């Protein structure tokens, strides 16, 4: 005889009080019924707490990322709940694992298909520097073909490391000037990667 199902017969009321994380409002001037602040701060706040990651997982780092996505570590807590597999809608390209030279053009194409603003996170030794694969067939770091914002060290990094990386990206995103992507310096950076 099968075991009777007993889950959630007497569900507990969730105690949400004090457990909902809210971000603090940016600095500004508050008055009766209005609040003034800089547009850049508001845009940064919105962007950094609603990142859409695009996982580009090619090996074991991808497994660690799956653990990070899961309920235990849960990158959803950082507003990065929506992991999408389409470059056109995502903000954050997470490159996890060994990138062979033959994979290089594909990675670059994925990057080019993303709309600005876009950020790149290189997870693990292989994506950052080629790692132990010091060989003819492996790209020695993805920063040879696309610009990288944050590198996560480790082989593979633990989920805590990935969370730290995402938080670093959030810091970058929140502080970024809304004019940065139009600046000459940014254009030079893109030009150095032969990206128009």
């Amino acid at each position: 005889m099968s075991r009777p199902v007993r889950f959630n017969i007497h569900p507990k009321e969730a105690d949400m009080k004090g457990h909902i994380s809210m971000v603090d409002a940016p600095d500004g001037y508050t008055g009766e019924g209005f609040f003034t602040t800089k547009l850049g701060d508001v845009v940064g706040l919105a962007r950094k707490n609603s990142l859409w990651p695009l996982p580009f997982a090619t090996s074991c780092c991808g497994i660690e990322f799956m653990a990070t996505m899961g309920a235990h570590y849960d990158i959803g807590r950082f507003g990065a709940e929506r992991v999408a597999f389409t470059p056109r809608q995502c903000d954050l390209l997470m490159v996890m694992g060994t990138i062979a030279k033959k994979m290089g053009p594909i990675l670059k194409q994925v990057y080019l298909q993303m709309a600005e603003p876009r950020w790149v996170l290189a997870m693990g030794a292989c994506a950052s520097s080629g790692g132990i694969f010091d060989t003819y067939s492996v790209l020695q770091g993805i920063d040879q073909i696309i610009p990288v914002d944050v590198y996560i060290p480790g082989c593979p990094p633990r989920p805590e490391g990935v969370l730290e990386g995402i938080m670093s990206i959030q810091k970058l995103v929140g502080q970024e000037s809304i004019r940065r992507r139009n600046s000459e310096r940014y254009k030079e950076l893109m030009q150095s990667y032969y990206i128009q």
Partner: protein
Amino acid sequence: MALTNEYIRQRLEEKFGEQVSDFEEPYGMLTFETPKDNNLKVLQFLFDDPELNFQFLTDLQAVHYPDKKGRELAVVYHLHNLRDNVRIRFKIFTDIEKPHVFTATQLYASSNWMERETYDFFGVNFIGHPNLIRVLNVDEMDYFPMRKEFPLEDQSRLDKDDEMFGRGGSII
């Protein structure tokens, strides 16, 4: 009658005489050598003979022996008789300056990609191959990476110099 190594060797020597040589049996697997222009004749004979019946090409690859002058590249054929479950292997040697070898694609369709791979990694030029281009490496590659011509670590690398690993340099 089971197909024995002795019988295969006897049949080959009857057919090819001096053209087959250096018979060995490492781990019980019959191995021999033949001149490189003779490879298709040997393959065809082993394929067509109703008793030998080696109609399955298990593997084909190359080995680079940098010290053997004039016969640096060995191309190795692994054949399998599926009916009697007998495997043999034979080698041909070629000069690395003139690495031209006749293709086996007319006989074994499976050798198409194996020969492309062998070309990709060792630069063996298979004459008559329908599509001899790289199969695993990037198309832009202008060298043959599995040849024993390269130092284990690229000495000109700037991104992984000793300084970054605490092995000398300015940080000790």
